């Protein structure tokens, strides 16, 4: 019989310990336990008793988990600073990427418009600009929300901050909806920002939040099964 360290692994992740140090900790604890069992077996004949004594010498899972959890250097940023990880960083990433996308599209339009002077802009340019604007206000917030959900799931963070982060991302994406009006032979082009309606927000929020919600439900069911 060899003790299962699964409950300790779960405690460590729930306590915010990063996976890599947690994995190494468990590997060394297993090795240590093997040494203790071998030592106890040399001293007594009953292998079960030897293992029980070895486990007791190793320390309770609570004590072993606390010893690692109390060291902040092994904790994830999601645990140390959930506000920054789930709210500030994704919102900043969305704002910066949206700004870069708009600048990229404007530069492309200026390049093509400048080369053709007063000639009509090619049809692909209009589709390209519309596609990029759609990407920045609809696709990008969803991709960031999915990434946030996976990070939160893997870090075993409490769902409050990740959920707020997903709502904030979608709200930001829907509020800061850039629209590009292409220049014509007689008028200048224009970039404007206009918020979408509540229906768009609701649809986007559902798409953005669904994977994280599904992961949480799946984990909860699995943990109920394994006890």
């Amino acid at each position: 019989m060899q003790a299962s360290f699964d409950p300790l692994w779960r405690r460590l992740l729930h306590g915010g310990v990063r996976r890599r140090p947690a994995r190494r900790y468990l590997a060394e604890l297993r090795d240590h336990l093997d040494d203790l069992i071998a030592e106890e077996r040399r001293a007594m004949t009953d292998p079960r008793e030897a293992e029980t004594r070895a486990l007791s010498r190793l320390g309770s899972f609570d004590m072993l988990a606390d010893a690692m959890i109390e060291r902040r250097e092994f904790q994830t940023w999601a645990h140390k600073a959930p506000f920054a990880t789930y709210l500030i960083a994704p919102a900043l990433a969305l704002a910066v990427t949206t700004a870069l996308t708009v600048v990229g599209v404007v530069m492309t339009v200026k390049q093509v418009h400048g080369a053709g002077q007063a000639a009509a802009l090619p049809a692909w340019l209009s589709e390209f600009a519309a596609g990029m604007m759609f990407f920045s206000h609809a696709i990008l917030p969803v991709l960031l929300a999915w990434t946030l959900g996976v990070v939160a799931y893997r870090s075993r963070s409490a769902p409050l901050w990740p959920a707020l982060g997903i709502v904030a991302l979608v709200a930001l994406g829907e509020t800061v909806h850039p629209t590009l009006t292409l220049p014509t032979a007689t008028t200048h082009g224009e970039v404007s920002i206009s918020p979408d309606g509540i229906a768009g927000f609701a649809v986007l929020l559902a798409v953005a939040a669904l994977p994280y919600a599904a992961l949480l439900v799946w984990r909860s069911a699995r943990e109920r099964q394994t006890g």
Partner: protein
Amino acid sequence: MATSNPSFMNGVPELLVLRLLWGREMYGYEIVQAIREETGDVVSLGEGVVYPVLHALERSGAITSERRPVGGRSRIYYALSPKGAARLTELTELWSKITGAVQQVLVGGGRAGLV
């Protein structure tokens, strides 16, 4: 195994680990057994608790680690780094000052005895 009082143990495992690694390489199990033997079982760690101490010391650059195959098994050996040697000197001086001061109080110092 002796029980440990956490409020008196702050910094002690770190000091003991650094001292034990002075001039020799050891793996976790060896370190714990050495602490038990060399302190006459007065200072004892929950055995698994030594690893967060080791990992934190390694992260701070005080010790280094190397995985080696020994007798068909793979073990992680720890060694003191120059930074760790400096930290050991610092901690040893601090510990000597504290124990000296506490001892002075315990033997009465300049104050009147207990009534």
